[in-house]
């Protein structure tokens, strides 16, 4: 503790808005990332509710089919690139320096720039709705050649993705450098908290895969405007080439979203089980092998394009392999809880919700891994249900767990435990009402991305829409809980979680000082 001094008096820090525009502090930047992602989460959520409102009943009642397609497209892009990814970068900014005993991120100015690229990208994405012809109505996967037919909203989306990609790559370089170079003495790689490990692996995934996406959308751009024919068979190209390039990015992207979530859960479960994480080395190896495998299975998203059956067999076997390290992780979490002394504060509740629902998402992943079954379910609501179990119950629940867990450290105040628990139970209930029934719709054959449907799909769609509005309102309630904690939360005790063992809890006061560790703690003993 003696390593910590309050140095804020000898800095001339700008105040007001300029503090945030010019800041190079990892905590300010982390907060901005988190608030930005929450704002995008609400915007993307409203779009999801437009979709669910239209699908409440058969027939076209609320929006035109074209606008519906723009909603599905922007909902996907905003949630993936605007909400979930920045949320975990926000966690990385706040937590990594504190968890490895560093004063700040390695490149503070680049850190500022990586954040401030996000708002223009968000404005481009949302502003595309106002372009002549509206946003691209092509799905977040942006398959060629449908992208060729779109208006200038499509170009705005492409530039938004370029900017988001730059931001992600700079953020990743920063994270990798910080973790590899700025650990406190004695913090060896295999002593790092698992959250730090998962971010190190994720950052490599980002650096390797974002340029591939940038390439895919740039080729789309030149096909649209500069006469190239990358994806046009008439000019010697191939529309399926786009899908290969996109999913070479897209599958690692799934793990870019999931792996930091694994990291948060691997911190929360041991803390509230009051027991060390079971199988730490195997967790690290399992995460790394998931990351490597994620580059080798991309074409399992495109079994119906007519690839050779030999290729389908390869992708089926490789995809099944992912079940093994994923299983190891789930088993390790359960073994961590086993014979622990568990308590169920809100972060632990969300971690348990994650564990239960993410495992269900893993099970449906196993179903989809079997190619003949996948072909039946491809582009149906079964896939929609599957990836929302992984993205919402997986990544989003983990993010909630992380916010409730670290909020006392960040702001020095407690959230309202009773309201937090209500938020959890509402989210859990409405999530399942929304998405569990979509498995049935998919099995019955309802295609994705349709604004209107045949009558045999009417029942479950109505149930799903009711659940979606409940889920949306529950998240407005989360905003209330946050604001209440910030404005009038009780002062947090020095150590709100008695089971926490990582540096931010053991070596820093609550709330954490503006500069974390000006002198690194010595952990060599």
């Amino acid at each position, binding site marked *: 503790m003696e390593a910590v001094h309050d140095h804020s008096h000898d800095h001339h820090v700008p105040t007001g808005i300029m503090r945030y525009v010019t800041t190079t502090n990892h905590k300010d930047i982390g907060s901005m990332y988190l608030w930005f992602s929450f704002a995008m989460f609400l915007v993307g959520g409203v779009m999801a509710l437009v979709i669910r409102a239209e699908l409440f*009943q058969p*027939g*076209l009642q609320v929006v035109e*089919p*074209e606008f519906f397609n723009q909603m599905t497209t922007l909902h996907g892009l905003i949630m993936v690139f605007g909400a979930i990814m920045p949320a975990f970068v926000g966690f990385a900014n706040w937590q990594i320096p504190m968890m490895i005993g560093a004063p700040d991120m390695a490149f503070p100015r680049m850190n500022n720039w990586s954040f401030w690229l996000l708002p223009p990208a968000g404005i481009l994405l949302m502003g595309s709705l106002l372009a*002549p012809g509206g946003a691209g*109505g*092509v*799905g977040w996967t942006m*398959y060629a050649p*449908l992208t060729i*037919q779109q208006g200038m909203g499509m170009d705005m989306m492409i530039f938004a993705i370029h900017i988001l990609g730059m931001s992600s790559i700079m953020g990743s370089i920063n994270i990798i450098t910080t973790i590899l170079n700025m650990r406190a003495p004695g913090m060896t790689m295999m002593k790092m908290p698992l959250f730090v490990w998962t971010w190190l692996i994720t950052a490599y995934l980002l650096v390797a895969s974002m340029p591939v996406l940038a390439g895919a959308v740039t080729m789309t751009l030149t096909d649209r405007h500069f006469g190239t024919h990358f994806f046009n*068979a*008439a000019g010697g190209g*191939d*529309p399926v080439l786009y899908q290969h390039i996109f999913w070479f990015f897209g599958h690692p992207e799934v793990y870019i979203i999931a792996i930091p979530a694994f990291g948060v859960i691997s911190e929360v479960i041991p803390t509230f*089980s*009051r027991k*060390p994480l079971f*199988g730490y080395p195997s967790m690290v190896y399992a995460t790394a092998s998931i990351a490597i495998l994620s580059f080798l299975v991309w074409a399992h998203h495109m079994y*119906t*394009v*007519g690839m050779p*059956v030999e290729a389908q*067999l390869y992708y089926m*076997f490789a995809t099944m392999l992912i*079940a093994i390290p994923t*299983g*190891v992780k789930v088993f390790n979490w*359960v073994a961590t*809880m*086993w*014979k*622990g*002394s*568990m308590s169920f504060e809100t972060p632990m509740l969300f971690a*348990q919700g994650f564990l*239960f629902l993410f*495992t269900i998402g893993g099970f449906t992943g*196993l*179903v989809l891994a*079997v*190619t*003949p*079954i996948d*072909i*039946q379910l*491809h*582009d149906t609501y079964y896939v929609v249900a599957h990836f929302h179990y992984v993205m919402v119950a997986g990544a989003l629940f983990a993010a909630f767990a992380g916010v409730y867990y670290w909020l006392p450290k960040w702001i020095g105040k407690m959230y309202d435990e009773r309201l937090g628990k209500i938020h959890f139970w509402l989210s859990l209930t409405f999530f399942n009402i929304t998405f569990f029934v979509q498995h*049935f719709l998919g*099995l019955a*054959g309802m*295609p994705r*991305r*349709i604004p*209107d449907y*045949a*009558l045999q799909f*009417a*029942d479950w769609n109505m149930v799903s829409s009711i659940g979606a509005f409940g889920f949306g309102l529950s998240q407005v309630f989360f905003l209330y809980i946050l604001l209440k904690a910030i404005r009038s939360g009780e002062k947090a005790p020095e150590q709100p979680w008695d089971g926490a063992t990582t540096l931010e809890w053991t070596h820093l006061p609550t709330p954490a000082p503006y500069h974390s560790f000006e002198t690194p703690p010595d952990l060599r003993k």
Partner: protein
Amino acid sequence: MKSSFSLRALGIIMAFLPAMATAEWNLNFTPSVTLLGEEIHAIHNLVMWIIVGISIVVFGAMFWSILKHRKSVGHKASNFHENTTIEIIWTVIPVVILIAMAFPATRLLLATRDSSASDMTIKATGYQWRWGYEYLDEGLKFYSTLATPRDQIDGGAEKEKTYLLEVDNKVVVPVGKKVRILTTSNDVIHAWSVPGLAVKQDAIPGFIRDIAFKAETIGTYRGQCYELCGKEHGFMPIVVEVVSEEDYQTWMQAKLAESGAPSFDPDKEYAVAELVAAGEQVYNANCIACHQEGGVGMPPTFPAIKGGKIATGSMEGHLDIILNGSDKNPMMAAWGPILSDYDIAAVIAYQRNEINSSGDIIQPSEISAARTD
């Protein structure tokens, strides 16, 4: 107060009853009428049982520890955090389960992808937004377009049982014959799929892919486009009617006779009223999705026909854009290959005389001349 609330709630529920009455609360796959489809359902059941087994073990352990190993019941934490034996066991057991799954999956995948030795071949071409079919052996060609009336979609008209799953021209195939479907596309990627026949194949512009099925039961099977293909993606269904061999031959002969004899006289001078009336049908089947009722369009992507430059301008320009599509706006498809001379003459008459009032028409014979230019 309370009773009025429950009355209102009842009213809301009553309002939804029509939808609920037709609902089916499906929980599983559409029953399949192909043997391979049944095998796919069987392997899905197998995987589901494996999942049930794993769930009992994993969630059992999870909920047991949640109930028993909690601080509130006074459980003291152990401190163990590794056990090499158990880690090896829970790595090896999934490997064994996956290998057990991989064998039947591989065999079934190879069977589903075998389109050799088929009895007949039909080419299915995706268009924005309809399917074109060509029976390659007989040379029969036709288009298959959504037949659900617009007032069921947009308005309050009662929805028929096959809402959104009805077409003007069905694909007819004989029972017990292996049918090979070649898929391709005229514009963007579509996907041809009929769940009851357990087939799904993308239709990719510039490439031809194939898939095969053998229906064992006579009946009508309905499917949809499964790859986002633009605005009307949800409105291009597929209907396959499986009939007896005799009925198939009868249908084929009738269809060939119908397509051989043009339904219009290529040399006749048609009157304005007749063309306008026919043109309204053509417009409603083909143009209305984008250009909207009354030709108001949805600018800028879908320009207005009412008062628009093209429909009020020169006849040559109007005919050209319908026959060949637009160079500037890729959303405007070339209708020359899809519509007959008569249909084009009719829709031009409708656009120029009903939606606009330029008063001129063009005869089918002039269109066939324009095609050969």
